[in-house]
């Protein structure tokens, strides 16, 4: 088996002043694959994503191993982290309405990633950004480049976000609920674009989501998180054969089109789920 991109062993995160840890001993490895992290709100899935980029101000992050390529992330200085972020590891945020700077041109914001990490002229960065906008299937990149975030739609905004985060050709992209702010009609379109680029370029993808069907269709493997721990790891195609009662509960709580009118099942949380595996 080829060398994994990311190895996480016993990752623990505690927010400043909190009495319990938000993430309690998460362990997983990631190759050139698409990994889904699923769980309810507050389960710690987004916290894991931001901890990998070391963007959790005020939080304490510990781990036995947090290796990214040949770097041990927790021992890197902030200066070295600056070279990792955006260049080798990046993150697609949830809602383009808020995650793009409202008073800067869309294209300049994309080109900034390139300017930050490569020694090049402004026109060169601009050309790269234009090519990338085309790669995320924006029809008129030259026009969109000049526009401001409020002038473009949510779906287009998220494609801009993808362009921005893939421009420096990273090894790993974390997508934190990349489509939950989008209309249902453009979700699939945006996901297909992201999926195509990630596959073509051999980028590792961590997809953080609470949407089981989305993860089932776009990921190879799925981690199920509950209360800061991974309760189950499955191949995406085996999701229906999940064994952990929490995962089963999540699956049972999904509505089906054309299904019966009976009330949906409600999760019956068991206190023993909170305990760490022996």
């Amino acid at each position: 088996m080829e060398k994994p991109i990311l190895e996480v062993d016993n990752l623990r995160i505690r927010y400043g002043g909190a009495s319990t840890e938000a993430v309690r001993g998460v362990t997983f490895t990631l190759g050139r694959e698409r990994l889904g992290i699923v769980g309810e709100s507050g389960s710690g899935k987004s916290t894991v994503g931001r901890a990998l980029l070391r963007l959790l101000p005020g939080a304490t992050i510990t781990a036995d191993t947090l290796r990214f390529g040949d770097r041990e992330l927790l021992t890197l200085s902030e200066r070295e982290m600056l070279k990792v972020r955006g260049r080798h590891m990046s993150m697609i945020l949830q809602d383009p309405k808020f995650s793009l700077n409202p008073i800067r041109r869309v294209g300049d914001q994309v080109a900034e990633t390139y300017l930050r990490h490569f020694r090049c002229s402004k026109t060169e960065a601009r050309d790269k950004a234009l090519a990338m906008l085309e790669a995320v299937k924006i029809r008129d990149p030259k026009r969109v480049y000049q526009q401001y975030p409020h002038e473009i739609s949510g779906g287009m905004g998220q494609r801009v976000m993808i362009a921005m985060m893939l421009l420096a050709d990273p090894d790993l992209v974390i997508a934190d609920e990349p489509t939950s702010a989008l209309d249902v009609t453009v979700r699939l379109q945006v996901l297909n674009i992201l999926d195509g680029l990630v596959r073509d370029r051999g980028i590792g993808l961590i997809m953080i989501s609470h949407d089981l069907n989305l993860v089932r269709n776009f990921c190879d493997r799925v981690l199920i998180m509950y209360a800061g721990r991974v309760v189950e790891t499955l191949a995406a195609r085996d999701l229906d054969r999940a064994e952990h009662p929490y995962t089963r509960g999540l699956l049972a709580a999904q509505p089906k089109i054309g299904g019966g009118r009976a009330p949906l099942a409600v999760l019956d949380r068991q206190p023993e789920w909170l305990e760490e595996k022996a």
Partner: protein
Amino acid sequence: MSHRRIRFYGAAGQVGTIAVTLLGLLLLTFFIGRLMPADPVRAMVGEDATRETYEQVYRSLGLDRPLWEQFFYYLRDVFTGNFGTSIRTGQPVIQDILHVMPATIELATFAILIGAGLGVPLGVFAAVNKDRWPDHVVRVFSLFGHSMPIFWTGMIALIVFYAHFGLVGGSGRMDQFYIGLVDERTGFLLIDSLIAGEMDVFWSAVNHIILPAALLGYSSSAYITRMTRSFMLDQLGQEYVTTARVKGLSRNQTIWQHAFINIRVQLVTIIALAYGSLLEGAVLIETVFAWPGFGQYLTNNLITGDMNAVMTCVLIVGVIFIGLNLLSDVLYRIFDPRTH
């Protein structure tokens, strides 16, 4: 075409708003003038005048006419640039004001440069270090500036920096020795002395302006610091700041290249308003430093009941604020693409 039309109506609306505000302002100054418990006739004729003289002046001022008619004449006078004669000095009010205004503008401009130069970086610094000790230090520092009475700090500063250390000039706009040496062309002493090539006078003027300007600047920096801090905190909590960090920008780059440019317009607005209140004249500082400015002039007129002068001063202050608000509106349109 729709763009152009929106912009046209925007501009037309603006002009309309200004016209209405101006009219309201004129109405206000007029009634302030009528309601003030000072008797303009008595101020002119003196305590010993006969009843006939009093009546005569009363009528010559048009005070026996109905109010609306008086207001109409007031409007006509204002629009023809006739603001009346000052009872106190016997000169046209406008001439008096043109004489005192440059001193105040000079002082206010220096003060706002110091105030903004101090307040904006401190505010950003405090926001970035929210709830940590630098934030508390900045808060205490600006609280002092805000709450110490300026006439007191003025006197203490004169004792320390002028009388004791001799670092700066004392009261007045320049040393006694230089008064009258430079022709008054613009009224701005710093400019006039440069035009005349009198460098001694220029440096004397700088020496004299630095202390009152620093004190005024410090006190107005308190407000600027507090506002900058809260604008900045608002921006630093936004998602696009995280995006910039994810792209690999450093904390400082994110603060200045992303968050700070988003508060520019708000900053210009509050700095303009702070400048406006400085232009109103700082009576206390002007008194302590014997600064012949607008604040002293306005206060003296109020005390003597010099109606024409008071009304014109109030009008000018109002016009300054309308102008500054207009300026910040225009800046919004330039800097914020969402208003295009």
